[in-house]
């Protein structure tokens, strides 16, 4: 388990517990929690809030009169659904399980597209309004300076990057609002791989990336 210094905030955890986040944000939350026991436990308490709300007796709506009989008929022939999970060698993979599902494999299976300057990205297929993409930033490389219209969450999967908010290594997640104009720089020594989720297009400050934006699908 990694030593994680930058965690999910209450807003994202609560939204994930409630099931109200766009799919791309659900993906980054599930991926971070796969690596972070502390946030996994915090998620448990936000789910407990949902449990308390559903428990509230004032909120019951009567079921159809045949409902119990129908369900009894369905369960009485059903065999126990054993979720047989094969043990996975966690150390061997760069991507936690939820991300493997969306990539269709591990790091070696990503279909990268160039963003220029050695930086590559791959947009993942998620529904809803937010966008999830993998970013590959070569060691020592600076990502073009950019701000956002909305919320951007960046989770490090390999290597590390630094910006005005600190240093982010594997398992760390940076959550940036509209205010942050940041210039992440990948550490020397190892290429940095991140999962980045945005709910609005990024705004690059330099003119070349801005012109390229519509073509690259950023």
């Amino acid at each position: 388990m990694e030593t994680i210094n930058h965690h999910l905030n209450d807003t994202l955890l609560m939204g994930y517990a409630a099931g109200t986040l766009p799919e791309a944000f659900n993906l980054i939350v599930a991926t971070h929690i796969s690596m972070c026991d502390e946030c996994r436990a915090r998620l448990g308490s936000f789910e407990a809030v949902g449990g308390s709300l559903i428990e509230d007796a004032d909120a019951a709506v009567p079921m159809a009169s045949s409902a119990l009989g129908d369900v009894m008929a369905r369960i009485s022939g059903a065999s126990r659904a054993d979720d047989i999970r094969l043990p996975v060698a966690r150390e061997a993979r760069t991507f936690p399980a939820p991300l493997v599902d969306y990539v269709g494999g591990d790091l070696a299976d990503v279909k990268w597209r160039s963003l220029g300057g050695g930086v590559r990205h791959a947009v993942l297929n998620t529904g809803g309004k937010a966008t999830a993409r993998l970013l590959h930033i070569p060691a020592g490389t600076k990502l073009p300076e950019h701000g956002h219209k909305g919320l951007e969450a960046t989770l490090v999967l390999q290597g590390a990057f630094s910006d005005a908010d600190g240093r982010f290594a594997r398992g760390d997640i940076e959550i940036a609002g509209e205010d942050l104009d940041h210039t992440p720089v990948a550490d020397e020594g190892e290429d940095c791989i991140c999962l980045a989720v945005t709910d609005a297009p990024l705004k690059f400050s330099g003119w070349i990336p801005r012109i390229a934006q519509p073509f690259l699908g950023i």
Partner: protein
Amino acid sequence: MQSERSDSRAKDGSGKTEWVLHMRRIAAERDQAAFAEVFEHFAPRVKAFLMKSGASDSLAEDCAQDVMVTLWNKAHMFDPARASVATWVFTIARNRRIDALRKERRPEPEDLPWGPEAEPDQADILSLQQESELLGRALKSLPEKQRELIEKAYFGDLSHSEIAADTGLPLGTIKSRIRLALERLRHAMR
């Protein structure tokens, strides 16, 4: 009068652990009578939750039935040291809602590599269940407006910008309760 009151209190206090025992009977003995009681209690609540989230009566009815079938099929996966029965039911209902209303996939965290679990410690189960009950009371005692905000966050589909705004939600007021629940969970996960 005296005995009546202590009776009802005893019943009240054991309410949550009682459902835990029901789940054990369902998981271990495939006890249909226990399941019927769990159904009578939770199915109408799940249906209400789904209707508050925007499902029609008939969709909510169908999905609530699906949720109860899932509860039967996955009863052996319920861990009373980590969640109350209500919380576990909530997570099943939430996932069914995302599937039915949004038709999206729901990425779930990777399972912890714990392997076959030992029988959970009775003290852990009791404290987790009690903590859940206290959390429920804390939520109930919130001022109406604040409680409505919490309900909206869980039942409604708050737009993402509303979530991002991160204001309004009375998290501070229930935070100490959540923190306690969190400590219990941490303890249970050790």
